[in-house]
Structures are given as structure tokens and as C-alpha cells.
């Protein structure tokens, strides 16, 4: 993996985190259940911090500060399907059991592939981000254990979303030209 390839991956991860931040932000006022609203509100900050760190790392890889890059078309469609969810239970299921595991998988693949020594600044950010995903998932599990009603109808409503994420195997678009700060 060369510097350009790393910058493209970092920019793509940043785009996904900004997208998740905006999705959570849009969900907060439209979520009625107080505890779920608060969970989304907490996690806005967690994904924002990852986006911020990735944006600064991009600059170290010769990309503009806070460089963002669209993922592959199939991954964009999967993200759009996530953002379109309107009910709380499918939102919880879609984000914490489908989208975040997919993103975690993308981080893990990158970390496995890159030179851990020379690209250690990126590895550190991504390993922290994976821990944050674990934390977000744990908090969501505790929430639905406390409020089982937040599971109702989730699986059937997120079938299409799971299919889209399963199809979006390549998050990073290798053909797209970078450069959209």
C-alpha cells in the first residue's frame, strides 16, 4: 500500500464517519424514545472524533486537511438505506448490528494490509476507532436489554439493509479520483 492508497482509504473512512455523524444527528430529533435519543446523541461525538482524527491524518498523507472521499457506489447505497430508516428499532439494529460491524471490518482489513510500522499513525487511529465501535455496540446492547420493545420489528425492517451491506464488499472505490476536501 503506497501513500496515495492510504490517503484514499483514510479519506473514505472519514467520509463514512461524517456520514454516520450526520445520520445520528438527523435521527436525534426524530427519535421519540428518550434513552435511544440520548444514545444517538452520545455517539454523534464518538464518530465525530474519529472523523476529525482521520481528517488530520489525511493531511499527513499528502491529502488536504479533512480530505473526504466517497466510498464505492454499492457502499454509498448501503449508507443511504441506513439513513432512510425512520423507526427506532430498525435504526438501532441497522446501525449497531449491520453498519458499524461493516465499518469495523473495513478498518480491520486495512490494518491487516498496511505496514503497521510505517503507517502506525493510521493504525493507532483505526484501532482506537474499533474500540469505540465495540463500546457503541455494548451500549446499544444494554439499551435493548433494558427496553426489549426497542427490538420489535427490527429484523424484518432491516433485511434490505443487511443485503445492501453484504453486497458492498469493497468500501474503498479504487477507480475514483481523489480530491474532494
Amino acid at each position, binding site marked *: 500500500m503506497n501513500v496515495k492508497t492510504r490517503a484514499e482509504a483514510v479519506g473514505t473512512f472519514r467520509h463514512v464517519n461524517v456520514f454516520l455523524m450526520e445520520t445520528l444527528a438527523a435521527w436525534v430529533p426524530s427519535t421519540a424514545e428518550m434513552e435511544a435519543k*440520548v444514545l444517538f446523541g452520545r455517539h454523534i461525538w464518538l464518530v*465525530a472524533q474519529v472523523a476529525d482524527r482521520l481528517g488530520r491524518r489525511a493531511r499527513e498523507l499528502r491529502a488536504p486537511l479533512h480530505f473526504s472521499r466517497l466510498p464505492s457506489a454499492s457502499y454509498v447505497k448501503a449508507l443511504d438505506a441506513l439513513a432512510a430508516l425512520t423507526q427506532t428499532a430498525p435504526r438501532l439494529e441497522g446501525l449497531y448490528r449491520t453498519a458499524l460491524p461493516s465499518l469495523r471490518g473495513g478498518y480491520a482489513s486495512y490494518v491487516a494490509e498496511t505496514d503497521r510500522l510505517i503507517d502506525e499513525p493510521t493504525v493507532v487511529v483505526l484501532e482506537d476507532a474499533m474500540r469505540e465501535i465495540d463500546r457503541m455496540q455494548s451500549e446499544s446492547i444494554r439499551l435493548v436489554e433494558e427496553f426489549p420493545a426497542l427490538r420489535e420489528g427490527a429484523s424484518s425492517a432491516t433485511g434490505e439493509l443487511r443485503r445492501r451491506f453484504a453486497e458492498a464488499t469493497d468500501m474503498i472505490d479504487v477507480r475514483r479520483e481523489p480530491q474532494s476536501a
Partner: protein
Amino acid sequence: MKQSEMDTKVVCGVTLRKDPARESCFKVVDTDAQMVAWPDMSPQSRRERLHRHMNNEITSLDIAAQCLADFPDAPWDLRMQLARQAWDESRHVTALHRRLKEIGGFKGEFPVANFEWTVTCILDSLVGRLTLQNRTFEAGAMDLMARLPGKWREAGDGETADLLDSIAADEIQHVRFANQWIRKLTSEDKRLLFKVAHAVRFLAEVNAAFAPAPGETNVVGQVIANAGQVAPINAADRELAEFSDEEIAEVLRQAGFPALVPRQEAQA
């Protein structure tokens, strides 16, 4: 987002943003006359105060989040501040809910109003929303919060007093970043000053429309406090929140405390 694209409601003749989502256990109302409040520190009054504060923090979370969603082209560092605010307000909601339950209350026990959301989020500019929510409502709450911990401590509830003081410390940052960004954005684009002026004028119109009639009472027969009777200015926290000396002096003058204005300021 333009106003024409928003879901709205009309209250007291004013068009406002429609309320954010609330659980069915909450009875959402529009005016102070429809609220429940007591002036004392009886057990039910304490629960109502915490319940009201909890919903106000939910509303602050809703507003910060909506600003992130509505203004994707805002400077990244400002968006980070809004994201951080969303986290802070989320923690405040949870902490207040925890304390509410500890003193025997529960969510939905009293009516709630989302006034700040309905007024702030009808504005179509981020600088306007920061002017109202952070620089006006949260700064006003900062003034109020300077006295509240003492009131709870006097009533024998040091735990709630400490919680409120912790929340007040967080709010300083929310007011400070708004002050910093309003200055920065308006210095870069003077036309944004019109948005600031519009926001201030709009709030004045809303306050006039919502002002209770003399002697008007709420649901439990208590006379509704005149909104003009503001809390004494918390000059120390306002200074931390980067209100300038001139701005603090102006607020003191408007609040009827000209004697507290430092001599130099008063002569200016």
C-alpha cells in the same frame, strides 16, 4: 433548510418549528399557562424542577443535533463543537433522569414544553440559531444556574446541587464557542449580522406574543412569573464564556443593575 421546507405550528399567533419527537408518556404543551410549577421547594416542586430541566436538556440535544444535520457546509471545527455539545447534553439528560428517579420522580410525571427548539429551529441560519440557543437561552440558563445549586443546598439536597453545578460548568463552554464562532463568522461575512439581528428581533416578538397577562396562572393556580424578571447576571461565568466586558455591561444595564457596571463602562 428553508422555513418553507420545515414542519411548523402556530402558537399565540407566531409560526414556530413543530416539536421534536417525544415519547407518548410526555404531555407536550406550548405555554407556561399549560405547565405545572410551584415556587417552593416541596418534594413535588423539586421533582417538577428536575423534570423540566431534563426536558430542557433533551431540547438542547435536539437543537445541537439538528444544527449538525441542517448545516453540512458549516466549518468543520464548529461542527465538532456542536457534536461535543450533543454529547454533553446527552450526559446531562441521563444524569438528571437518574437523579429524578432517586427522588421519586419519573419521566412523563409533568407536562413539558419545547419552547427553545420551536423558536431556534425555525431560523434558517446557523449563526441565527447560535445567537438564540447558545448565546441567549444557554447564557440565560447560566445566569439562573449560578443561584440554583445554593437553593437546592439550602433545601438540604447537596447531591442535586452538585449535579446542577457540574452541568452549569459544561454550559459555559457551549456559550463560549457560540460567542467565538458568531464573532468569527460575522467578521468574515458582515451580511450575517442581519441574521443575528433577525434572530434577536424574532425572539423579542415571540416573547411579546407569549407574555402572560398580569396575574395569569398555570395549571396548578400559581401566578406565572414575568419573563422580564430575569435572574441576576452571572458575570463571572459570562466572562468565562467570552462575553466581552462591554457585552456584560450592556446585559447588566438591560437587567436593571446599572450600579454593577464598572465605572469606566458606565461612562462609555
